[in-house]
């Protein structure tokens, strides 16, 4: 360092340190709330079982219920601590857009769900759009766009069901305008069971495990003035 440090250098470094400190606080882990739906989620139950077996390997014996209680206690404490710390820096962080939540692929879904949209024409159902399927790619430019994909990811995690229904209504009106013979539109989330490498090599397919969130829309009820 060739020059003597001035008060400006110190003041600037102080502000930088405050900024860095605020970012560090925002980086504290954000555990989700462990309500009944989350506790009963098969994916979570499976994760918990596997972590219990890791615990057993190092001499920690916990039943499924004890492990669940431990997870709930730990996440509750973490949420309270984080909430208190974050409240101090939140006004600054929110105004400048410096949020720090980077839980990217923390838990990878083994049973993701994809959107299937069907229309009934002449009494027969046919696929209109199936996500990641080139044979049914209605409105693909929008449906496969990045922001729409983000929304589909929410539905895959069972989040935003009301948004899902509004999107269905919007698609019904679009279908009515574009497909004069269509009378009904149906949306479903198809739950896939992702196989491991050996099983996938053997079968060569990704099976559908179940369906959920099936909604039907009578196209005649779509408001003519609606888009």
């Amino acid at each position, binding site marked *: *360092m060739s020059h003597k*440090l001035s008060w400006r*250098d110190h003041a*600037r*470094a102080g502000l*930088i340190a405050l900024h*860095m400190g605020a*970012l*560090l606080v925002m*980086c504290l*882990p954000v555990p989700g709330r462990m309500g009944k739906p989350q506790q009963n989620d098969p994916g979570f139950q499976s*994760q918990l079982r*596997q972590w219990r077996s*890791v615990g057993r*390997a190092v001499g920690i014996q916990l039943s499924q219920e004890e492990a669940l209680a431990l997870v709930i206690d730990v996440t509750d404490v973490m949420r309270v601590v984080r909430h208190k710390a974050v409240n101090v820096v939140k006004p600054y962080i929110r105004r*400048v*857009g*410096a*949020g*720090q*939540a*980077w839980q*990217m*692929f*923390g*838990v*990878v*879904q*083994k049973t993701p769900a*994809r959107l299937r949209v069907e229309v009934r024409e002449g009494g027969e159902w046919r696929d209109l759009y199936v*996500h*990641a*399927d*080139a044979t049914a790619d209605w*409105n693909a*430019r*929008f449906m*496969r*766009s*990045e*922001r*729409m*994909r*983000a*929304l*589909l990811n*929410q539905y895959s995690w069972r*989040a*935003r069901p009301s*948004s899902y229904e*509004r*999107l269905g209504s*919007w698609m019904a009106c679009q279908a009515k305008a574009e497909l004069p013979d269509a009378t009904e539109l149906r949306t479903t989330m198809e739950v896939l069971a992702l*196989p*491991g*490498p050996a099983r*996938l*090599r053997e079968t060569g397919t*990704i099976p559908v495990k179940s369906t959920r969130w099936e909604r039907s829309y009578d196209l005649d009820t779509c408001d003519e003035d*609606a888009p």
Partner: protein
Amino acid sequence: MNLWQRFVAHMARPEPTTPLALFRICVGTIVFGTILASVLSGGVDILWLTDADGGYNTFRSKQWIVRWLGGHNAFTVWVLVWTCMLSALGVATGTLTRASALVCGQTFLALMSLAPGTGGSHDRLITNALWLLVLIPAGTTLSVDARWRTGRWRDDTPRPAWGRTLLVFQICLVYTSAGLHKLGVSWFPWGGYLAVHYALLDPTWSRLDITMLPAVAWFSPLTRFGTALSWFWEVTFAVSAWWLGTGRAERRLERLGSQPTIWQRLRHPDIRNLYVLVGVTMHVVLLVFMELGPFSLVTMSFYFGLYRHHELVRWLPGTRNDAA
């Protein structure tokens, strides 16, 4: 020198701001591109407009700029879209750089408030990057501002190095935090290192048609290796910053001399380059096989902070001699 004085001195040491300028150009271009993609795909009309204006959404944003512009309606949304794109061009070209970054960041935040659930980590990283561009002297060189101020596009006047330090700090936070949040068993040996395998198969993220997805199974050794490597790489990414910040990069160059052989380079590897090489490879794979928006591009923009001016200008056209 005590710890605080060392921190102050580290932030105040002068250096030319080429890394910040390259970061700025990338971020501005990416923001322009991501908003343009929303316009072209119909995302603005369908996701950001409300049902009253032809969109699907009944949600009404209460964000302060949205309210100031008259509420969540078509006029407000399109004013935000065009202002954001115009200011992104200002950021990319370095025109009124700090003001452009502030406008771009705030309008981007307003746009992200219009339809909850339609964004991702890349949006958060973009708003972080734009706020950094308000704070740091990123318009000093390779900018219209430099042209107005000095009559030349380039201005290598040294400025305090804290701007580059903040870039490095931010990218270290992103990777370290992402690594520590990876608690799913498929990231670990007891889960078979299958996280990348499952992520590539998830149709929500995959760019591949579902009929092509089973091919992923044949690359199982690679996806397992990728899982183990990416977790370790993320958690330890701060090592690259430590390597840079403690002057090891310079000491390595001194040790190598002016014309090092390949053997000498291998014997004394630049740890930063190893981390960057893994990062670029990982992000290119993500770009090719997964639909993650501009996440990879905006993340890699931060890598410029890991290199100093004299290391970067060797690669810029017409500036090779400046590196000496």
